[in-house]
């Protein structure tokens, strides 16, 4: 059976969770708090590559499962209540569905799977719920009943696996530009256009470009809640995961690097373009962007995931657990949109009509 880790209060043996406000492990029963360093004992086994007696749990093969149905599923036993916890191969932290105790699957972080850094949660579940309320305010085309009728289906704090890239790039670009000069005499208006070739060459460095390393999380959703402040990242310790959910990565660095490389190349191109000033027109003629160096780190970043249900449709929201940036698409009230369009259109048309009658 794989090793699960639960963090127990040193005073009352209750299950500890990481408190985002205190930035410490807190016991919800006796209110005691402990630093992460005081509870790092299980982490000493992570670097060894294998925990003694650890192996991935056997596949579940009860008689009632069809062939292939249990592929990729693993079972664990909760140390507190003995309940069976089912998870997929990527599950790294969860809570027992029977007793609610937070558990960490130590096997998910052994050897090369051990994250380099983690950004601890700074904002709590209540902050996420408040952010959702603020997100719904001031939206004139949001159906009024959405605020009342939508039910918060679930809210979960996730440590999402990210690949974080550092890189230095070399850029070499050329542009076609023009300068225009106009003047007139008694008989003619003159326009002189001068044509130039402009060259720019140089280096640019990027640090901590995050790319979502899990297929479970929508890449666009994760990019929407950026940026993360990597200066607040700390060395990884499993204690930070207590009370939250976590997965290990299932997208490797090569695939993630493609996305990071594209974003860095686009920014490099834009940065050089912005230096071409003092012309009336600028058009990029050619360019190349070369990677001089790159490195990757594996980190866990905090994200609050919320979902609500309205008219049988699920709406997913995400909040950056560090900065509080909140995103999520909302439904459009088409009738309200039509009313606004017609009302505004007629109102503006009437105002323009009156003004033209009076002054033209």
């Amino acid at each position, binding site marked *: 059976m794989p090793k699960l880790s639960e963090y127990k209060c040193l005073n009352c043996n209750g299950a500890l969770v990481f408190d985002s406000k205190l930035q410490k492990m807190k016991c919800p029963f006796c209110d005691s708090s402990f630093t992460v360093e005081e509870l790092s004992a299980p982490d000493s086994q992570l670097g060894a590559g294998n925990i003694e007696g650890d192996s991935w749990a056997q596949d579940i093969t009860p008689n009632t499962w069809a062939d292939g149905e249990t592929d990729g599923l693993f079972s664990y036993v909760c140390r507190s209540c003995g309940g069976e916890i089912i998870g997929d191969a990527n599950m790294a932290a969860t809570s027992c569905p029977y007793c609610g105790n937070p558990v960490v699957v130590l096997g998910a972080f052994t050897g090369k799977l051990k994250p380099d850094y983690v950004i601890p949660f700074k904002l709590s579940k209540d902050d996420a719920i408040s952010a959702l309320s603020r997100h719904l305010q001031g939206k004139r*085309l949001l159906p009024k009943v959405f605020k009342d009728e939508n039910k918060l289906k679930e809210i979960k704090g996730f440590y999402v696996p990210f690949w974080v890239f550092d890189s230095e790039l070399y850029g070499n670009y050329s542009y076609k530009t023009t300068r225009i000069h106009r003047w007139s005499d*008694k008989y003619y208006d003159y326009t002189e256009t001068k044509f130039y070739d402009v060259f720019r060459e140089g280096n*640019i460095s990027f640090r901590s*470009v995050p790319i979502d390393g899990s297929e479970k999380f929508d890449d666009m959703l994760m990019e929407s809640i950026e940026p993360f402040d990597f200066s607040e990242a700390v060395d990884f310790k499993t204690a930070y995961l207590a009370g939250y959910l976590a997965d290990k990565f299932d997208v490797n660095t090569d695939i993630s690097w493609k996305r990071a490389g*594209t*974003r860095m190349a686009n920014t490099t191109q834009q*940065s050089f373009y912005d230096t071409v000033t003092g012309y009336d027109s600028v058009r990029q003629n050619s360019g190349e962007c070369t990677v001089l160096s790159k490195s990757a780190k594996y980190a866990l970043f905090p994200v609050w995931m919320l979902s609500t249900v309205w008219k049988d449709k699920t709406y997913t929201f995400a909040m950056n657990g560090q900065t509080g940036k909140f995103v999520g698409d*909302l439904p459009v009230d088409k009738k309200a949109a039509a009313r*606004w369009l017609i009302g505004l259109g007629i109102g503006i048309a009437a105002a323009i009509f009156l003004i033209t009658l009076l002054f033209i």
Partner: protein
Amino acid sequence: MFKKSVRKTALILVRTAVLSAALTALFSIAAFAENVEKSKFDTGPLILRGIVCLAIGFFIAAIITGTMKSKLNTVRGNNYASEYIVPSSFTVGRANEVYLYNKVDKLARPQAREEDDGNG
């Protein structure tokens, strides 16, 4: 209690001001209409003016409504990494321009016609 009554009073004052402004505008329009050129109110030009104003009005309304709609969609990918540039790391080693050629276009200016002296 006091705040509520102040708010109510303010609302009444605002409504009165808006109604007065609307009535004043109507009277001004009526007075102006007395002196305006009658040809302005011929049916043909009036309808054309109305259609053009409606088109402009709905165009502006579509832009405003589109902006309100876009506020409901906040999930957007990020194709750049500008927040992650290392400060002072962007160095331009080579920056030069090469002049190629120029082109001059000239456009004749409309000249005022000199009045001919009549000979006959």
